[in-house]
């Protein structure tokens, strides 16, 4: 999006008002064509989703507003929001929606796009975990909580490892923490199966 | 404790406008001072000067007459007839030493429930301020 040169916009204050040319209506259409997102345009904006969402306590927008932003084509706002990452895929919104919209899938598709477009909030651990998880499973075919958390922590905020150590020890003590990296025998076969399937 | 004086107002409301307005005030649950006692007549034109004088004679603190707006009379011009009488009445009542605020004529249409409230509350406030009526005889000595 080219920056506006107009004098009255040259101030450092963040502009809240939106010009219609900043709205990407084609994009809204594309999103609505993705699997699970077809209900997007039948949304009534009733807010049941945000109401029932256990994470909406901490969300910046909440699912209802995300749908409104997507539908009106405000791509950046939607993709760079924390809301889509805080979604823990509990599907509460989906089963409560009076229009039966698969809101969780909308969130997934926005997460994927945010990753591709590198629009996710920086130093925000959730997308990082997702990426590390993705790499690990592609490499070994299985995930190991220990290495996963370790990698994520290193990439976001190493200090949290200290706070985690307590829990780590507890898990170790109860034999619930495996230090070795799990892997399947037939990684090659898995990888070949995966090959070409990626949409990235 | 000194209790505030509560005036008693005799109100003559015409059947088609003001009485209906008072009913509408009720159905709309509009609250107003409980000091009026309504006498229903078919038309404000039916309100005989004697009724008013009789009401004052029997100790009414105020008399309120409610009719349809000019031109809206259910009987075409009864309210005009009342209006004509009213001018004379006013003078007469004054001579009897009854304050102006105690006799009032208002046009209130069937749709004006809110107006019933404002008129009655206003009149009650004025009469409260005025206090109880002093019999004419005592006035003279004063």
């Amino acid at each position, binding site marked *: 999006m080219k920056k506006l040169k107009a004098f009255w916009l040259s101030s450092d204050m963040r502009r809240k008002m939106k010009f219609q040319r900043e709205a990407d209506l084609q994009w809204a259409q594309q999103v609505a064509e993705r699997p699970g997102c077809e209900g997007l345009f039948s949304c009534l904006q009733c807010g049941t989703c945000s109401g029932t969402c256990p994470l909406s306590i901490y969300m910046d927008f909440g699912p209802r507003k995300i749908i409104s932003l997507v539908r009106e084509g405000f791509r950046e706002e939607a993709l760079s929001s924390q809301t889509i990452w805080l979604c823990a895929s509990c599907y509460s919104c989906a089963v409560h929606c009076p229009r039966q919209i698969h809101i*969780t899938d909308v969130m997934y598709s926005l997460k994927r796009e945010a990753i591709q477009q590198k629009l996710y909030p920086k130093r925000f651990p959730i997308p990082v975990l997702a990426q590390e998880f993705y790499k690990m499973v592609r490499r070994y075919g299985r995930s*190991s*909580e220990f290495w996963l958390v370790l990698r994520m922590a290193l990439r976001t905020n190493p200090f949290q490892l200290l706070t985690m150590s307590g829990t780590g020890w507890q898990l170790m003590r109860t034999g619930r*923490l495996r230090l070795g990296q799990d892997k399947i025998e037939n990684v090659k076969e898995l990888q070949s199966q995966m090959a070409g399937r*990626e949409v990235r | 404790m000194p209790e505030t004086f509560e005036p008693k107002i005799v109100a003559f409301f015409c059947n088609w406008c003001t009485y209906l307005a008072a009913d509408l005030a009720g159905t709309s649950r509009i609250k107003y001072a409980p000091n009026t006692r309504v006498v229903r007549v078919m038309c404000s034109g039916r309100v005989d000067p004697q009724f008013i004088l009789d009401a004052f004679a029997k100790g009414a603190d105020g008399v309120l007459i409610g009719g349809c707006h000019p031109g809206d009379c259910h009987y075409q011009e009864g309210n005009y007839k009342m209006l004509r009488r009213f001018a004379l009445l006013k003078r007469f009542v004054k001579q009897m030493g009854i304050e102006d605020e105690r006799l009032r004529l208002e046009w209130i249409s069937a749709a004006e429930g809110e107006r019933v409230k404002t008129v009655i509350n206003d009149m009650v406030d004025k009469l409260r301020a005025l206090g109880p009526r002093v019999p004419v005889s005592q006035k003279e000595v004063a």
Partner: protein
Amino acid sequence: MAATYGYFPGCSLKGTGAAYEESLLTLFRLLDLSLQELKDWNCCGATSYMSIDENSAFGLSARNLGIAHEAGHRDLVTPCSACYLVLRKTQDYAAKYPQIAKSIEGSPAAAALDAVKIRHPMELLYNDVGMARIKSKMVRKWKGGPVACYYGCQLVRPFAEADRAHDPTRMDELLRAVGVPTVDWALKTKCCGGSLTGTIHEVGVRLNYILLKEAARKGAKAIVTICPLCQYNLDAYQAEIRKETGEAFDMPVLYFTQILGWALGGDAKSLGLGRAISGCGSIKEWFPKRTQEVEVHA
């Protein structure tokens, strides 16, 4: 009469959820049901993988379904809610969306999509085994207090097949069948936050605090789960919550398979009861290590 089911443990049951696997296997043995673990199964992809790449995410479960199919399983038992949902979703979406069906074409899974039925042990015990049979095999009386059944999210949503989406009751019915009192509470399907405890820790911990507090408020002495991640989240952070809030939480967080297994005569070790982090005191008291007396259900 030993029925054999395919078994897809998923990564957690090999790690933090070890007790779930142990108790599940014990319980099934006690019920003469045998589980056959899939050969060389791979991770289901859970929620994170789905957040990066949808198609290959479906590919992951496709492979697992393929393995199950080739092994000739008609039912695939999947104790982890995340695995359960992902496998189930793969079948559903491949049927609904040609582009997804296309992405797994050719793989042995293609045929398996509807051939293999995804089963959760709770629903399997409820439907295939039935309360009567479980009751009949009961050998121990419950010594603990009332428990709060916590179903979490992904088992009952969006595919309300394992139980009703809004107010599931099957776990309660199973536990009541073996004489375990259960409390009614509004949060039985409110999300535990999943991996949030590992990512945005304070948010994750708070979600679990809400659950623990409400369960206690309703008089529950323990929370019973059906998902390794729920169990981990509720179990692992109580010390931290105690420290932060000063409220005295020490609540056992058990798997429904542990309680059922115990009622049917399994011993503490084979039910992985030693792997609990919180409420160990109560656990020791309710599930004594060595039980001489085996009281037959009256």
